[in-house]
């Protein structure tokens, strides 16, 4: 098409194309979206890999994420510092995993990370209670919350340690064919 863009070098674009599930055009479009989140912070020229991070508060206001009950956890689980400040690489990574073409295993890994609020590599009862509260706007009674979480652990826990490890979670996902289409954010 002859688009001469000066945001990335060709090698950078190729690298992005190889590492994510996006095409060149989509990566350029993503850069546009990233830039408009914080125009004063994000440089237009990325050829020399600038080190800038957009804070969590700006990212969760994106229209794609603003209504998602897990928006904070999503952004935190893709950020290196765990606080939700994303560099452009992490930003692209996030939307790449949540895109349609990402494979099921990758999505399962990140879904597990998102639901794991206390970051201990297990979905314990407290994690599940937090997930439930986010999903139901905290309008269930505490007994109901307890009951649902207990039932969830009962159904999904295979090795009997009263919390869900990644293996248990993955097993449950493998029996849910809709997961690929529900764990998907379009950008």
């Amino acid at each position: 098409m002859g688009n001469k863009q000066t945001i990335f070098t060709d090698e950078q674009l190729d690298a992005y194309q190889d590492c994510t599930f996006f095409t060149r055009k989509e990566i350029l479009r993503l850069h546009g979206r990233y830039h408009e989140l914080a125009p004063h912070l994000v440089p237009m020229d990325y050829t020399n890999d600038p080190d800038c991070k957009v804070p969590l508060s700006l990212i969760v206001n994106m229209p794609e994420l603003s209504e998602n009950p897990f928006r904070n956890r999503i952004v935190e689980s893709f950020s290196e510092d765990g606080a939700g400040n994303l560099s452009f690489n992490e930003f692209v990574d996030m939307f790449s995993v949540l895109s349609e073409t990402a494979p099921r295993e990758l999505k399962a890994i990140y879904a597990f990370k998102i639901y794991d609020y206390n970051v201990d590599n297990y979905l314990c009862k407290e994690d599940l209670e937090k997930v439930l509260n986010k999903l139901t706007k905290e309008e269930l009674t505490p007994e109901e919350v307890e009951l649902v979480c207990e039932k969830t652990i009962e159904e999904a826990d295979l090795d009997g340690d009263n919390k869900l490890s990644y293996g248990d979670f993955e097993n449950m996902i493998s029996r849910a064919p809709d997961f690929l289409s529900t764990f998907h954010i379009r950008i």
Partner: protein
Amino acid sequence: MSINKNTILCYRSYCLNVSQSFRRCGSNLRSEIGGKFGTSVQSYFVFLKWLLMFNVFSFLVNFGFITIPQLVYDFSPNVPNTTSFRGLEILTGAGYFNYTVMYYGSYSNETLEGAVDYKMQLGYFFTIAVYMVLCGIALIFSMASSFKANYVLADTTSGGAWQLLCSWDFSMTNERAVRQRKNNLRESLSEKAQRKQLTSSEKLRHFGIYLGAWLLSSSLTVGCGASIFFLCRYEQLTLLVPFMVSLMNMVVPLFFSLFNKFEHYSSQRRQIYVLVARNVLLRMCILGVLCYYWMNVVATEYSCWESVVGQALYRLVFVDFIFLLLGSFFGEFLSNVVGTRLLPRLGIPEFDVARNVLEIIYAQTLAWIGIYFSPLLPAIQILKFFILFYIKKVSLMQNCQPPRRTGRAAQMKTIFTALLFFPFFLGALAIVGYTAWSLTPSKHCGPFRGLDSTFSVVEVWMVQLNSTGGSEVVIFVYQNVIRSEIFYFLITIIILVIVYIFWQVSQGRKQLIVLLRQQIVNEGKDKSFLLEKLQNLQKSQPNIRSKNHKKVGIPSLLARFS
């Protein structure tokens, strides 16, 4: 010169825009509809597009192999002087249309001379047969592939774990939709948490109501069928039967939904299945009665009966289209008006995916039955589905809210395709097959005039090939494979054996799953036992641990277990 260059550039950019917008049409569907209403509503529109493809293929094949040779041979329709084209024909399909290539009756039965000798009889027969077979194969493959991808062990999707962890649709961006979903999830979870055991008298009462509802719906269905059969006699009121059929298809399901409200079901899914089953039975009963009337009464009483049946089907298709539009108007637009202004308690209507899918499956069945009697019916069907797609999309956007139940779209696609195939496609195939096999074609019109049955076209052709010393292979295949019973017997035995083997393999695998699950639990217990022992060991011998420089033993053991 510059004007030319500009116009070329302009044209090129225009073409690019058009092609981009077509490509984006598919993704627009997903982002506009899927993002706002969820994947189950989106699956309806995807299904409609897929069915449209069937009709496009059918039209191309029929037009190319049947109509074009006929038109080349005899361009002008031999219309008698008394009839002329009045606009009414579009509605009734009779009159002027009767003598055009729209219907079976206008096709000749001769070998059309021309650049190549085209046997019209064989052309007609094989085109329809091959199209039906290809349709069947496409449906089977689609069903098998979606079943394979979406097969879920029975209980998991109704379990709390699934609802909590897998059911949230991350692609929803509409605030109202998200709020709605949260409410529904909360309601559903709190319902589950509060479920209590029913006493046996309550169970008996529920069963009685259930039985009563089934009796009522069956009697409604039978009543509709009988009244259609009775009304078929009144042929002179040409639009009466299609009107009544469409009216019944529109009104009786409302009764079924009403019965549904009084019954109690153990799960949401069963409720939908029962409702769908009743609707399917109603439509099949009505179609069955109509086909019985056509095969037994029309086929014996009229001279060019295939064209008469073709016209009846045309009218059915057309009136069904009008009723679909009316249904969209009443079901969505008026409900929206009533729900927002007059009775706010009702709220905004939802897009009823099951009912709409059933309607387009029924419409497609009419087209499939009609292909034999009216080869150009797919053209009408294409127009119908095309217009319906856009009307439904606009109506959805303006009038409806996202559906309440977290729709399991993957399973729904399997169910839609299975519904399309099993009762409806196989039924249409059976009707066309019965017509081709047993019924005598009319003597004075159509490509099969003078023969005993349509299928004897093949026999005649075989005799011809035999006498003129044609292809030996074809004759051999016909005599020893198609006509011999041993072949079908052997094939059936082989297929049964293969099915039995696969069934045994799957039984074995189920047992293996149970064993493996038990093994996982045991491993977990082993792990916790060993970890405890390790910790006890560490506590009792702290000195040795501090002197241990080799990093191989304990830390790696700990790493292995966590």
